[in-house]
């Protein structure tokens, strides 16, 4: 398939791995954070860590939107779902995220009308087909997904639907990156920037990282060749003494992003004062809410929500995993009390979560890390 097959060529992967090995200084470890959960998943799925020299250590970042949703917001969604006459629609992975009082899947088992959709447009179609019910879409995701919600809101207004709303939990990529960059004792030397978030916001959006924090960024696509090439580009910047934003994903990402998608977001949503992130705490201006002209579609105005702030389970160390301070297997409940079948923390829920990716694909790596190679 065009745009896929040529980026999975094993011979090219081996050649890039050899190039990467030639770009490191023996014994000098470079820690590279892949921000996006999609990258984490691809790294494990394709076994890319095994191709890298011990001097390149990959650190998994906060870019899985399922993993950063705090438990209190899940409880709010459950409260909406349990309202008489309401259908709550959301993406499949959100159904299993544990809140303070169980998951949406458990609410469904108790009788709540919870449905899985692939797109907010599917939720809108449900509302159109079932005019006697109110359909609320539980919206999550970074700037990649916000345009789909924005388009849905614009269509809902154009269709004058009165039985549709959005529980908006869209988040922004810059604030958590700043929070990580300001973490005392930061153990990250370079960043692989998100690919599809960048297709919306543009690669220029990361210039603050080299300019204010002195770390290079390469915006990367998601195939094995892309990721290896991006790592080589980061290492080459170090050798050349450069520190800048480079774009490996030129077939999709432009420096200025996607003006139409940005305009749709700006028309329908605006930054919140602050938002709670799992593992990162409350970050200012880090999420979006619906603008006033879309108040009639705003679930936060239509429903009485508990709005509680719920502490993560004490044994769960998702926060430290999300900020790259520990590896998944260093958490005491990893693979025992917390598994993809029965997740305790959000990082184990989505296949893009670092813990789930590690559990499914990466356990062979652990003896190597425990032996101190690459540490």
């Amino acid at each position, binding site marked *: 398939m065009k745009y896929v097959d040529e980026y999975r060529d094993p011979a090219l992967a081996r050649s890039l791995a050899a190039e990467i090995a030639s770009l490191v200084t023996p014994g000098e470890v470079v820690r590279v954070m892949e921000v*996006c959960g999609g990258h984490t998943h691809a790294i494990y799925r394709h076994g890319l860590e095994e191709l890298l020299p011990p001097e390149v250590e990959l650190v998994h970042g906060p870019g899985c*939107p*399922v993993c950063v949703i705090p438990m209190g917001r899940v409880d709010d969604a459950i409260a909406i779902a349990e309202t008489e006459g309401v259908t709550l629609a959301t993406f*499949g992975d959100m159904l299993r995220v544990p809140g303070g009082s169980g998951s949406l899947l458990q609410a469904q088992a108790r009788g709540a009308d919870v449905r899985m959709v692939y*797109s907010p447009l599917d939720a809108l179609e449900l509302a159109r087909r079932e005019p006697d019910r109110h359909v609320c879409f539980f919206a999550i995701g970074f700037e*990649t997904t916000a345009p*789909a919600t924005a388009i849905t809101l614009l269509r809902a207004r154009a269709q004058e639907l009165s039985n549709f709303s959005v529980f908006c939990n869209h988040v922004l990529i810059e604030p958590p990156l700043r929070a990580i960059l300001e973490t005392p004792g930061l153990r990250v030397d370079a960043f692989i920037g998100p690919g*599809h978030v960048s297709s919306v916001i543009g690669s220029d959006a990361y210039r603050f990282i080299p300019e204010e924090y002195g770390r290079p960024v390469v915006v990367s696509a998601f195939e094995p060749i892309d990721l290896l090439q991006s790592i080589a580009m980061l290492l080459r910047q170090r050798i050349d003494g450069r520190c800048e934003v480079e774009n490996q994903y030129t077939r999709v990402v432009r420096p200025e992003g996607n003006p139409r998608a940005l305009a749709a977001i700006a028309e329908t949503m605006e930054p919140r004062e602050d938002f709670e992130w799992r593992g990162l705490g409350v970050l200012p201006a880090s999420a979006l809410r619906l603008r006033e002209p879309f108040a009639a579609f705003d679930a936060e105005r239509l429903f009485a929500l508990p709005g509680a702030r719920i502490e993560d389970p004490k044994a769960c160390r998702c926060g430290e995993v999300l900020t790259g301070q520990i590896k998944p297997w260093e958490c005491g409940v990893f693979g025992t009390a917390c598994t993809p079948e029965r997740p305790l923390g959000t990082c184990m829920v989505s296949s*893009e979560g670092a813990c789930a990716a590690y559990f499914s694909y990466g356990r062979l790596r652990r003896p190597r890390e425990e032996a101190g190679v690459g540490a």
Partner: protein
Amino acid sequence: MTVGRETCSTCGDVALPGRVREVDGLEAVVEVEGQSERVGIDLVPDARPGDLLLCHAGIALERLEGDRG
């Protein structure tokens, strides 16, 4: 576990190229990894059959450069 696909539909990882088969107003039928899907083309309203679109969460985010026809 992610239902339906190997990856989570909220994640950029599933922004996949889809070839337009037919266009009906602001909806297009695209072929993504051998399967037909309907996507909103509000952001690429001039899309036409043969175009390759980057699709995510039920909408086309944009047309892949230089791949018309």
